[in-house]
């Protein structure tokens, strides 16, 4: 995997994509070469907003959006993964919605909206076109992913979100 990477991009670090685009490129190559059954991609760049540039937040979300599009296309173009893959897209935490701050979207200060996130789940075995409009704990996703993959996650604290499983 890394030999192929080096053959294509070398060692200078100047040819390969960087930041969250790098994560997308690595994920796409991993899907094609390593054939994982479970993969977690931890995008990070929206966190740059902590340092004051509001545009870093929106630009980073756009970069992640483009990355997700590429990942979905990669999965859909692969016969083994098509129709047998679940995507779970979820922020690790929310953001403040503090109108008194010049940059309202931090999340260091335990505000209510910093604890409130969304989750987007689609793919095989997931109910389509349904909005589950009730508060659930983020830890439920772990149990739910296990259920979708056919095993019980004994150490997970949250419940299985059976409402979204077909």
């Amino acid at each position, binding site marked *: 995997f890394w030999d192929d990477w080096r053959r294509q991009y070398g060692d200078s*670090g100047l040819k390969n994509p*960087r*930041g969250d685009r790098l994560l997308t490129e690595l994920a796409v190559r991993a899907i094609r070469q390593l054939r994982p059954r479970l993969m977690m991609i931890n995008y990070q*760049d929206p966190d*740059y907003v*902590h*340092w*004051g*540039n509001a545009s*870093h937040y929106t*630009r*980073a979300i756009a970069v992640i959006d483009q990355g997700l599009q590429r990942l979905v296309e990669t999965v859909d173009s692969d016969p083994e993964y098509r129709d047998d893959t679940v995507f779970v897209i979820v922020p690790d935490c929310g953001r*403040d919605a*503090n*109108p*008194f*701050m*010049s*940059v309202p979207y*931090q999340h*260091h*200060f*335990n*505000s*209510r909206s910093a604890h409130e996130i969304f989750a987007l789940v689609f793919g095989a075995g997931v109910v389509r076109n349904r909005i589950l409009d009730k508060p659930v704990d983020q830890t439920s996703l772990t149990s739910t992913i296990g259920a979708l993959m056919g095993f019980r996650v004994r150490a997970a604290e949250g419940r299985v979100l059976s409402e979204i499983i077909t």
Partner: protein
Amino acid sequence: MTPNAKSIAGARSTSSLYGAIAHHVSMAAKLIITTALALTPLTALLVLGWIVRLMRRETVIACVRHAHSCSRAQAVDRLGAIDRLEVYSRFPGWWSGLWQTVLGGLRAFIVLVMLTLPFGALLLLSWWAGWENSFNKGYEQAWAGPAVALVGILLTVAILSHLPMAMARFAAEGSLWSVLELRQVRRLIRAVRWRYLALTIVTVLTTAPLFLAQIAPTFMEKINPKVLTADPEELRAIAERWHLMATIYALVVLFFLRRWAARLYARAVLAEPDAAGPFVRETVSAIGLDTSDAEAPRRHWTGMVMATLLGCVAWGGFIVMLYIAQFANHAWWNWVNHPLIGLPWVFRPI
């Protein structure tokens, strides 16, 4: 006491009571007007001009007190008897001398921009460019942001170490270039080095509540849970209350700090008459103070180095507080202005 003496004493006591009441009402009105003007950046220029007039008056009073070894009240009375200095016997009002206030504010703003914009711009640029470069993964030039920040920090400490005395000199002399006479400013600082260090430390400490005020909105939900359900008008009212309290605090502290700096300037120029500008020389001449035999302050180099270093440490503390506050609640304006250093206006996002 005879009945006539009693009635005269009673009349005097009534008149001085009315005078005291009128004085306090007048001061309260001035505080209200000053606060209202400090709420916007444009009108804060007038507050700046008024503070400059206040500082000049304070320098004159301090010169008279030193010349006659008298109390403040006595010094003010003496000023009333000297033609050229009679105007300084009265507290600067808003309506009397409005043009001087406008002009003084504009000139003071130019001086502050000259002195503080270089380091403020470097700090702002280092922050913006450093994080912009980091976001764009320019690892090869990751050193640029921190390097510019370091230069900005060093420049900040160097300039802020001079600023209080330089501004006091400007307020007294009225000359824009007086703040750039670095050798004279340094001489004056050396003449009162320990008192100047005390002023520096108090100045830095008094900036802390304003930095806390900058951080406080971050915790607004905890401080005032009603904001979760407040409509835009209610949110604006909360922001205005916060802004008003911060502004009043800044003005009270400025009133104290700037007058202290002005008195220090007077003490320094009387110890180092050669470093005095034209206005102080004329003032000293008008009050009949002979400074020709003023003993030059003894130069303890160790003491001077210690005082300078401690002053730099104090301003370093200011910079630490600035970075913490900017991380907690970032605002671009706060890199280039602090109400106790520059324009007496507290930035508000809403």
